[in-house]
């Protein structure tokens, strides 16, 4: 008998365990309350449970923070990209606004000019070189001819020097070979504005007896056959004694040539052409 039991010890153990567990469960089902062993087990396991909860809580917290950090980082990158796009957009809008202002000023000038004009965009700027010229993107195809006056929103720019079908070269009033008949707006004193090949021009042939002050506005006199009368040219920057009976007067042009972007070419039909005697046959940069 003992031999039989010993050989089947595991089986008997199983039966005993199963029976005990069945009894345990039956007691619970019948009693309807949690048994004492359950609370013992729970009490014994509670330190480990609390430790594991702390560990898992820490892991979960770290994970959440990591995910949040990654989310924040990706969001930050997206926002930075968006800010970059908006800055570009803002710059474009600012550029469009400024262009609009310039074109509006040019349009006002065009309407007040009383002659046919053609607008042209500056495509090349040599306003700080030895020969002070700019290239505009319109030419003889648009009706432009040599010696036509070129004006900007602020005032006189120069005259057309060379014309090709689609591009024209404009000699600026600051070019050393440029000359413009002007008068002082306040006193109507007439003189010739000569370019110096620098940012300033000289007002020549003004007697020391004439009343010219710093800040006086010069406008075109309209007697050189190129520029119509009354276009603003520049302001007197300095008045000195000069030589002999003439004053030395420096003039700052109204137009900022290194920033000019659009111009108007005055399509006058009565302008002198190269086969006519005037104006003087100098080339830009050549001193008279």
């Amino acid at each position, binding site marked *: 008998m003992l031999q039989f039991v010993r050989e089947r*010890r*595991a*089986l008997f*153990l*199983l039966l005993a*365990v*199963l029976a005990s*567990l*069945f009894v*345990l*469960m*039956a007691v*619970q*089902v019948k009693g309807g309350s*949690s*048994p004492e*062993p*359950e*609370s013992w*087990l*729970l009490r014994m*396991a509670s330190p*480990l*449970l609390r430790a*594991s*909860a702390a*560990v*898992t809580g820490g*892991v*979960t917290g770290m994970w959440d923070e990591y995910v949040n950090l990654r989310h924040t980082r990706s969001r930050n990158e997206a926002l930075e990209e968006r800010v970059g796009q908006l800055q570009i957009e803002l710059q474009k809008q600012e550029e469009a606004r400024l262009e609009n202002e310039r074109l509006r000023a040019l349009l006002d000038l065009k309407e007040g000019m009383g002659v046919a004009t053609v607008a042209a965009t500056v495509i090349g700027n040599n306003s700080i070189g030895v020969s002070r010229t700019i290239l505009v993107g319109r030419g003889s195809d648009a009706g432009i001819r040599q010696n036509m006056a070129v004006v900007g929103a602020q005032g006189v720019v120069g005259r057309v020097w060379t014309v090709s079908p689609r591009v024209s070269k404009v000699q600026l009033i600051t070019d050393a070979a440029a000359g413009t008949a002007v008068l002082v707006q306040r006193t109507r004193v007439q003189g010739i504005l000569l370019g110096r090949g620098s940012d300033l021009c000289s007002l020549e042939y003004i007697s020391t007896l004439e009343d010219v002050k710093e800040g006086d506005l010069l406008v075109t006199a309209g007697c050189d056959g190129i520029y119509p009368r009354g276009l603003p040219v520049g302001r007197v920057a300095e008045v000195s004694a000069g030589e002999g009976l003439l004053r030395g007067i420096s003039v700052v042009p109204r137009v900022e040539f290194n920033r000019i972007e659009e111009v108007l070419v005055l399509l006058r039909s009565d302008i002198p052409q190269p086969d006519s005697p005037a104006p003087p046959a100098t080339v830009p940069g050549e001193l008279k």
Partner: protein
Amino acid sequence: MSLFLALLVLVLSAIGQVALTGLWPDASLYFDLPLVVVIYYGIKKGPAGALLAGAGVGLLQDSLEGTLLGVNALAKALVGYLVGFLGLRFALAPFMSRVLVLAAATVLSRATEVGILAIMGRRLAYAPYPHLLLSVAGNCILGSLLVGLLAARGMKGEIIQ
């Protein structure tokens, strides 16, 4: 492996199961860590040891999970005994045998739980069949990894061939 270490592994498996469900609530659908440990003991220690291990860890699991005290204990005791019994007669250490034992043990354990709960007049809180398939897959993967890990740590030689 000492008795203390064996007990510690059992307790940690039950605690680990609870902690796992704390991190990932659906973990109980896929894994039954104590069952995997009991199967390991069944292969390694034989029926008596696995039976006692299953009953003990099952009771702890019941108390932690709040189910009827004894359901898991009975199912795992039965599984431990049968795996141990088979382990005495067949080679269960090879990979495919191990996977088959894990799958069969999972099915048996779940079926036992369902049967006991039905006998005790309790309702199941989950759909048994999809849950069963997920458990089989999860336990096979986890069990293969764990037993492989234990074998790699030099315990393979102790497994009863």
